[in-house]
């Protein structure tokens, strides 16, 4: 079958099982847009290429399938650099197709020419400049293989216009061997000797903590993690990228560690004698000052990326492998080494001390540890000052949203205070329901990511919890959502500030507020929402919070934006100051007295 390169590209995407792609056409990619008219793939026309990239990320994060975006050369391609960088940091599988000027014009500074493979070399898992139409099916198959296997990540395929227009004979590679990837072979199984050593360490631990990250979600290892946790009776912390990989309502879940983690999660790691790091990477926002992080803990580190092992913290046992497979191997090794096969407590029944989640009698060694953990939980729960009748508290908005929305609601967020409150106060009981920008910290992520998530899971309610600063960066994609009838819901926690920067200036720069004020009503978010084809609502008092959310939850035919006017002075607590030890955790001022 003779096809043009463009037809072969679209047919390759179809063959790869792509159902939807996000993009915006332009000169160099024009040939590829023609066969889209006949394609089974749904194309969502974005208003800015950054939106296409974040939508593809949101789609990928909730479906586990690679997100696909398509853009033209030059500025089209550079506009998607931020999403590529974001996906690289958070290990999200993306396949981005970019147009390129014709082969003969490459290197001449042609109109809309940009060396995008050069630009994205350091922020993609791999990229390809396709030089011949014959290479297209093989390159597309290789791109999906690389994006989705091993540690997932973004890839980019740059297609010059003459390659799109050239003729080729259609084929589809029949096996991985035909993909021309002699240097690519990700690991999967863990080293059995290391797994047995890990099991031995786990059996003798007195203050163990399972430190579960985004890799657990990527590996579809949530059921395995739950089994491991329940069999061992070990507490579990879930990182910002791992929220939802172990249910927040499970009695063994301690919640989120890190710079804005809760006191118990942070302190449990500091006092731990064994950290079992599963698909987590000792990010600086989790460890604080590395030298004083978890000083007494031995470390078992499981990661599919061997380069993460020992990168930040030396591990007593380092296991390169797929999280799900290695956790299952660990469960077997623990059983073989004598751990009782019965699920331990932690399933809601009171344990030996009468506290939920305290391990049963078969793990008496952990009783003391659980008692300590429960004391910390009692003394230092997440806390904010409830001010009925006063300014709307952003934490209260998140709690009300959580309580009034279905349990499996997908929550997207931008970056800043609102993101931390969302992560702290939402109850993540289901995997793949939290869509945020962790590693890169990309403001403006929430709106397009929520749209992509809703496209991937139209059956779910999708709320974006956004800040006013973030919203202004990518709000135009609500036009896309309205036009494509993608009914996402956006809660703007509008405190009229770049709130996290404001918080740092208040705490660490002697209240010298430099360039952080945004104004609560410029722009007018309600009018803006309406202009973009959305329903716009405004909430100015605490009593209006619940009714507005109820109203928004009933709208299912168009996007909704709620402008919550929230307390500008509210800060995120707890907080570990940047560069400080986690032992220097700052709790809410009202809890200070509880610290010795």
């Amino acid at each position, binding site marked *: 079958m003779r096809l043009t390169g463009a037809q072969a590209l679209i047919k390759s995407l179809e063959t790869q099982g792509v159902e939807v792609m996000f993009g915006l056409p332009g000169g160099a990619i024009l040939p590829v847009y023609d066969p889209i008219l006949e394609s089974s793939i749904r194309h969502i026309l974005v208003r800015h290429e950054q939106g296409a990239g974040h939508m593809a990320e949101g789609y990928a994060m909730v479906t586990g399938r690679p997100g696909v975006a398509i853009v033209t050369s030059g500025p089209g391609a550079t506009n998607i650099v931020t999403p590529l960088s974001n996906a690289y940091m958070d290990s999200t599988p993306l396949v981005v197709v970019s147009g390129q000027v014709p082969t003969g014009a490459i290197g001449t500074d042609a109109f809309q020419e940009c060396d995008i*493979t*050069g630009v994205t*070399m*350091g922020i993609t*898992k*791999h990229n390809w*400049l396709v030089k011949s139409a014959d290479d297209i099916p093989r390159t597309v198959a290789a791109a999906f293989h*690389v994006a989705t296997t091993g540690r997932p990540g973004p890839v980019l395929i740059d297609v010059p216009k003459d390659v799109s227009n050239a003729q080729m004979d259609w084929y589809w590679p029949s096996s991985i061997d035909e993909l021309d*990837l*002699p*240097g*690519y072979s990700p690991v999967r199984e863990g080293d059995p000797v290391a797994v047995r050593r890990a099991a031995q360490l786990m059996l003798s631990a007195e203050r163990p903590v399972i430190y579960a990250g985004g890799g657990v979600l990527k590996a579809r290892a949530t059921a395995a993690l739950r089994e491991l946790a329940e069999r061992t009776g070990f507490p579990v912390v879930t990182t910002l990228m791992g929220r939802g990989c172990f249910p927040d309502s499970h009695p063994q879940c301690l919640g989120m560690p890190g710079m804005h983690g809760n006191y118990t999660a942070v302190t449990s790691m500091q006092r731990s004698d064994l950290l079992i790091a599963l698909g987590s990477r000792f990010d600086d926002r989790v460890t604080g000052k590395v030298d004083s992080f978890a000083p007494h803990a031995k470390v078992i580190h499981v990661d599919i*990326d*061997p*380069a993460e*092992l*020992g*990168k930040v913290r030396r591990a007593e046992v380092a296991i390169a492998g797929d999280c799900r497979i290695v956790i299952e191997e660990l469960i077997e090794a623990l059983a073989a080494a004598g751990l009782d096969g019965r699920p331990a407590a932690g399933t809601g029944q009171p344990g030996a001390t009468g506290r939920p989640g305290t391990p049963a009698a078969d793990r008496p060694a952990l009783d003391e540890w659980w008692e300590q953990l429960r004391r910390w939980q009692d003394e230092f729960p997440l806390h904010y000052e409830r001010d009925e009748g006063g300014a709307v508290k952003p934490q209260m908005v998140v709690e009300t949203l959580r309580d009034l929305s279905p349990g499996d609601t997908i929550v997207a967020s931008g970056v800043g205070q609102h993101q931390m409150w969302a992560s702290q106060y939402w109850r993540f009981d289901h995997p793949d329901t939290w869509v945020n920008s962790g590693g890169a910290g990309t403001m403006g992520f929430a709106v397009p990511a929520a749209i992509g998530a809703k496209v991937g899971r139209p059956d779910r309610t999708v709320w974006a919890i956004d800040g006013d600063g973030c919203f202004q960066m990518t709000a135009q994609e609500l036009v896309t959502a309205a036009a494509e009838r993608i009914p996402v819901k956006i809660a703007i926690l509008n405190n009229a500030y770049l709130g996290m920067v404001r918080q740092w200036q208040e705490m660490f720069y002697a209240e010298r507020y430099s360039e952080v004020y945004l104004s609560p009503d410029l722009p007018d978010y309600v009018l803006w929402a309406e202009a973009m084809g959305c329903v716009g609502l405004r909430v100015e008092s605490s009593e209006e919070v619940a009714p507005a959310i109820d109203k928004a939850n009933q709208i299912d035919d168009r996007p909704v934006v709620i402008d919550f006017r929230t307390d500008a002075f509210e800060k995120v607590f707890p907080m570990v100051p940047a560069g400080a030890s986690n032992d220097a955790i700052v709790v809410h001022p009202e809890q200070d007295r509880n610290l010795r």
Partner: protein
Amino acid sequence: MAEGARHHILSVLVENKAGVLARVAGLFSRRGFNIFSLAVAPTDEARFSRITIVVDVESAPLDQVVQQLDKLVNVVSITNLAPHEAVERELLLATVAVDPAERSQVIELVGVFGGEVVNVGADRLTIMLAGGPDKIDDFEGLLGTYGIVELQRTGRVALPKLTRAQPSIAEAG
């Protein structure tokens, strides 16, 4: 050889494709790894090239450098050569300004080191020397007393030593 402790040789087999060197060099620069020297050439198999990198292991743990390199899709394999386990060679070309009185001294020096005068001018000589890094360093130092006009070193290439029983032979040439 003081640098032995700081430097490590990685012999990296890569796909012989456009942009691969940029990927390797870019990885070193963005991760903050220092390259001491680098040599690239095709191998006996046209699909592959070999990059010999002398890495400054004080800038990052060697294992981290190897693991990050190994993640590059175009990197096929990495052989880690500790200095005492490798045969290393480098080539030096230097043009030296010599007045007639010194000319014979320089030619004698070249002879002692087993080098070669490859070009002769009225008041200049271009000299070539191949050898182990220490020898090249010594030669360069001695040559410095004669006024070096231009000097170029290739960077090292290396192969593993065949057996531990032959270190003196390996060092001799």
